[in-house]
């Protein structure tokens, strides 16, 4: 049996295949299909300090090999999560990671402090890249000073594993990655969605209530892969690759580009079993190519 374990910060993961935030709910919905403890980690739906209704319907539009979403971080807020959801899911035997969102640095800090209290949440993913909220969100992730500021402040109150999720809507993502590494991030995950738009040419109206939304799916894979490659060369901390991963081949590509682990997002909508199939597929790949462990692929990553 090949060894699929990977390490991010001080945290060991049973395998490098994780479910992306906003595409696997709060783990329970996936648990209707299979034993979710088989996943490397589960990045829970984006959470904010207080209840958010999210954006108006319609929130979704299909695009060539992808989709736009404008969910806008609908969630019932930190207290509901802590009191109602957390007790139900905390015993799932894999790492549950909270995706932390805020409109101000203070909100990020306050939410992080609350999550810090939860014994079974070993890491947070600081989302500074949500394109679907009016305040905060992506604004923090598209300039170095603001990205640095939020990571610096959150790092002060959080000693567990801190993963920072980066926005692809920037000129130089490697620069942002270096900036957050400099403030003590344990890892960066990328990419979040690309800001996009869809229009109904016959009705002559936008297809999303918010006009613009976040593009995900295979369409973005080539750009996400390039960004992961650039970031992996720019920082020393582990990189989690995200963006249009639909199958084992895609996952391996991200690892060859330098990702220590990967997250499966939109693919879950098409087939909730995708992450399990990829775990299996990586095992087969390692066997076929004669690696003992998944870290083998990563260490032998493309010499480019």
């Amino acid at each position, binding site marked *: 049996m090949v060894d699929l374990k990977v390490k991010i910060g001080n945290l060991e993961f049973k395998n490098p295949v994780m479910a992306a935030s*906003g*595409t*696997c*709910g709060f783990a329970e*919905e*996936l648990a*209707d*299909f299979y034993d979710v403890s088989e996943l490397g980690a589960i990045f829970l*739906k984006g959470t904010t300090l207080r209840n958010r*209704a*999210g954006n108006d*319907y*319609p*929130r*979704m539009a*299909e*695009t*060539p*090999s*992808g*989709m736009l*979403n404008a*969910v806008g971080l*609908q969630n019932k807020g930190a207290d509901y999560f802590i009191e109602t959801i957390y007790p139900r899911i905390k015993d799932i035997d894999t790492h549950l990671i909270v995706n932390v969102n805020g409109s101000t640095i203070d909100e990020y800090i306050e939410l992080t402090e609350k999550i810090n209290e939860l014994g079974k949440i070993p890491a947070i993913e600081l989302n500074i890249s949500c394109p679907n909220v009016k305040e905060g969100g992506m604004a923090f992730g598209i300039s170095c000073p603001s990205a640095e500021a939020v990571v610096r402040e959150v790092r002060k109150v959080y000693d567990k594993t801190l993963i920072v999720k980066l926005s692809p809507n920037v000129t130089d993502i490697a620069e942002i990655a270096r900036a957050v590494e400099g403030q003590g991030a344990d890892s960066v995950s990328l990419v979040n969605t690309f800001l996009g738009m869809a229009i109904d040419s016959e009705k002559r109206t936008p297809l999303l209530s918010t006009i613009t939304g976040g593009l995900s*799916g295979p369409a973005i894979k080539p750009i996400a892969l390039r960004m992961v490659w650039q970031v992996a060369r720019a920082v020393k901390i582990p990189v989690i690759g995200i963006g249009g991963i639909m199958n084992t081949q895609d996952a391996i590509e991200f690892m060859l580009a330098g990702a220590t682990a990967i997250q499966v997002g*939109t693919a*879950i*909508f*098409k*087939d*909730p*079993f995708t992450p399990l199939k990829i775990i299996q597929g990586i095992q087969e790949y390692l066997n076929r190519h004669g690696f003992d462990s998944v870290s083998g692929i990563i260490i032998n990553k493309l010499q480019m």
Partner: protein
Amino acid sequence: MKKAVNDFLVIENRALNATNYLIRLLSPEPLPAIYPGQFVNVGINDSSEVFLRRPFSIFEVDYENNTLGLVVKILGKGSKKLSEAATGSSISLIYPLGKGFSQPARADKILLIGGGSGVAPILFLAKTANTPAENVNILIGAKSAGDHIGIEDYRQYGATHFTTEDGSLGVKGFVTQHPLFAEEITGFDKIYACGPDPMMRAVAKMAQEKGIFCEVSLENLMACGFGVCLCCIEPTVKGNLCVCTDGPVFNINSLKW
């Protein structure tokens, strides 16, 4: 609730009229209990244009033969592709999804209203309701006689009535203009409706005015169908709820219509 993803075999694909198809699918595993109003999310094979799955209501379940039936109306690229599915080909389904209609009591006088492909869950409910046929009225609306989805004879499950916009079958007009609805509505304990949005809103409005119990089945756009994407939301008195998991059937009193 336990859900599955499986490849089903197309065992029948039959045009019901110019735009509607009845597709019967064989399950590779014993089917779980499935209730009227529940749906499946269908993978569209090999299409350069369709990326996501497409939701379709379950029209019938045959536990003995392990088959499901869907009624597919051609609306765009995905439904077109599905309507061309060859017998013997396989189609991936995520199932069973959503919460179905509440079961009417035996004594309830019920009115079932279906418009367009919305007849699928409505006829499934007619077939499976405990309510004896004499307490059931089925009202089906279509553009014209040719658009009517005549799958089998539903009169054994209840008195069946039609409206067509051009008057070519039954009463001329919309379902809400049928005397059963316009005049005799207060005679019903419960109304169940599925169809185009304007139709359901008109039904809901009247039911609300008269204070009659009414459930509608919504068809919001979906990305996942099983509650993880939060794309299919409907504003309700309890906030934004997912049509795919909290619905697709809603009591009109909970909707903000």
